[in-house]
């Protein structure tokens, strides 16, 4: 069952630990501000040059994409070795070297569906964090019903011509390239969709930022007006994009789930509750809030155990375990509950927007609470997720 014998793995752990300790820049021990998130790309700004150094060192070993083949710049590690690497990174409390839609979403489907030339062209710059990608899926009329998308793509002989509009495109204004779902056949729904890659600097591409309820503008409306795309930037078959699109969504959800939506950074819920509500006999003074915090903590523990079990089962069965299907839904609920409890525990300190009179951590928690409301919408809504579980996993059919 194991890819490498335990002793080899022990040796790998020792080597990895030594390398990380030597190469992780200690200046990155400070907490990572939102602006410091290492998204890479042509326009990356490195407020701390050590963050760039860390990326370059990790990328040189292929460890930004540990399990990708070395032929495409990856680390070529086995699943076991990767787990060891991740454990050692956690042990070091290391910041991520690179955060990237290319790593999490696009790369895995390119490995599966792209031509050799496409892999050679697109994968290594992802590993090195040179190109930042965005995801052009949703449209104003096609959200949950993604396959209803209308962005037109016409074959013009030596190139494709794209016209239409995407929406909620995260970081479109900062990305270098887009992986985009386009309609190449209007007579069919799912079988008329293709998966296209193009440069965001191509004439006719225009992202316009949209402000979120949390005050930041991480996503955009993205307009395409006669965008010319070289034909070798189609991935997979013409009209064969839907399978790739779905596969990519699986990777997206897996990744969202694994990261738990980034919840858990900052002060611990219990500590905040003790500080702001008070302590009585060592316990959070408000028993009602205390019980709800415990309920959430138990949910979070159950979630972590389920992620671990689903991983083990998927590996043993060489296919996704049934538990995998609920992970994204549960992760969203978990992060949203946590954020609500945090704001509630903070009391009036959790109701600030900016400026004087509020603790900076409290202000961050309030913005994070607002942002968390998107967790049950982004990457497919919770309702759609539950529909899929009911139909595909439980065999409950639509009423006819």
């Amino acid at each position, binding site marked *: 069952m194991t890819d490498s014998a335990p002793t080899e793995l022990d040796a790998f752990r020792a080597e990895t630990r030594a390398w990380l300790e030597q190469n992780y820049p200690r200046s990155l021990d400070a907490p990572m501000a939102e602006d410091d998130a290492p998204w890479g790309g042509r326009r990356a700004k490195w407020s701390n040059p050590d963050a760039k150094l860390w990326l370059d060192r990790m990328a040189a070993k292929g460890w930004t994409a540990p399990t990708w083949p070395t032929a495409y710049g990856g680390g070529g590690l086995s699943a076991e070795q990767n787990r060891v690497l991740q454990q050692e990174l956690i042990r070091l409390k290391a910041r991520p070297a690179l955060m990237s839609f290319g790593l999490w979403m696009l790369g895995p489907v390119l490995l599966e569906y792209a031509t050799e030339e496409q892999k050679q062209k697109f994968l290594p710059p992802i590993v090195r964090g040179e190109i930042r990608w965005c995801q052009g899926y949703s449209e104003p009329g096609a959200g949950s019903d993604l396959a209803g998308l209308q962005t037109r793509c016409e074959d013009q002989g030596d190139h494709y011509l794209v016209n239409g509009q995407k929406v909620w495109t995260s970081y479109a204004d900062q990305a270098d390239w887009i992986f985009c779902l386009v309609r190449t056949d209007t007579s069919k729904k799912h079988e008329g969709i293709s998966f296209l890659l193009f440069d965001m600097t191509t004439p006719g591409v225009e992202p316009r930022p949209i402000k979120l*309820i949390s005050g930041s503008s991480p996503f955009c409306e993205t307009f395409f007006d006669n965008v010319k795309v070289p034909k070798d930037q189609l991935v997979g078959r013409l009209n064969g994009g839907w399978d790739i699109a779905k596969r990519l969504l699986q990777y997206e959800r897996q990744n969202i789930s694994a990261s738990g939506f980034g919840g858990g950074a900052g002060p611990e819920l219990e500590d905040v509750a003790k500080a702001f509500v008070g302590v009585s006999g060592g316990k959070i003074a408000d028993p009602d809030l205390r019980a709800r915090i415990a309920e959430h903590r138990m949910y979070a523990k159950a979630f972590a155990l389920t992620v671990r079990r689903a991983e083990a089962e998927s590996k043993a069965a060489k296919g996704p375990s049934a538990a995998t299907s609920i992970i994204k839904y549960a992760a969203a609920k978990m992060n949203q509950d946590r954020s609500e409890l945090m704001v509630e525990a903070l009391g009036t300190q959790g109701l600030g927007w900016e400026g004087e009179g509020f603790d900076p951590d409290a202000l961050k928690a309030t913005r994070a609470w607002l942002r968390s409301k998107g967790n049950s919408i982004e990457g497919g809504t919770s309702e759609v997720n539950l529909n899929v579980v009911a139909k595909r996993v439980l065999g409950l059919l639509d009423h006819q």
Partner: protein
Amino acid sequence: MAVLTEEQVMLKDAAKGWVSERSPVSALRKLRDADVDVGFDRAAWAEMGQMGWAGVVVPETYGGSEFGYRSLGLVLEETGRTLTNSPLVSTALFAASVLTLGAGAAQKEAWLGRIAEAGAVIAPAIDEHAHHAPAATALAATRSGDGWTLTGKKPFVLDGMAADAFIVAARTSGKPGEEAGITLFLVPASAPGLSRTRLKTVDSRGAADVSFEGVAVGADTVIGQADQGFGLLDQALDRARAGLAAEMLGQASQAFEITLDYLKTRVQFGQVIGTFQSLQHRAAKMFTELEMTRSCVEAALDAIDSNGNDVRALCSLAKAKASETVHLVSNEMVQMHGGIGMTDAHDAGLYMKRARVSEALFGGASFHRDRYATLMGY
């Protein structure tokens, strides 16, 4: 809705009409984007005064209409619907209650008439911690000569920037946590030693941190009896809780109606999303909660007006239920709108932000569940 008098129907209709014309949600956006430090539109507040809304619970002798809390609740429900920022809660509801219930003749003479014509803003400076806990009052008032000297801090005071005066809960004897030993003062904002810092809150209202550094006030600023202020405070807070619950009912009702509309118009998979049963049931459940909340709010307001003996429990019930309901509905509003609900351009976020502030004000659901159980003796 229970039966209203003719006067109440007129008041409600007037409020509905005025709010849609003068104070739609876009008015809140404008205030927010213009960064107005008092957090409300003074001209709109003056109009409220002209229409008599600031004096609904003020006795006729002092220029009010004495229509009662149920009537004020009708106005608050309508202003709640469009998230109208105004001093109705701080001044027309809370301060008018404190003064009507407990002030001496001279204080009433000086302030109630001004409240009734929206000529003064009086803000509640009660809580000192992040969570509602009136008995925990620690701000010290010590006797000096004929008067008192106040020293301490009151954070997150609603309408604290606009206030002409504050109703301040101070400790004159005993220890924080004890109900005895609390005294209420009416302190003019101009008193030397009083300072305030504006807070920018998530719901874009005009709150402030207020600080008292040796603020000297006369004996005539004490409202009611020294050391005996908690009973009066609690009574006034209950009136504020019930009135605020009416406002929250309005917020939740409107958030629900906007959402229901969306369920009937947004098309995905070739059909309006309201045809999906999972959403239908959630809408029906929200409707259930709104109906239950309305019953609680009306019962609490009626009990206040008829001087019922279960006012305290009913006010806690109304505030807890309204908090739970507006919490649920505001979250569902975002979720059922999908991506667009997450945008600042849509109103869903504004309802959710206002909801959380309303929930926390004068005690959240958890505070009132505890108080309800205590009042019921278990």
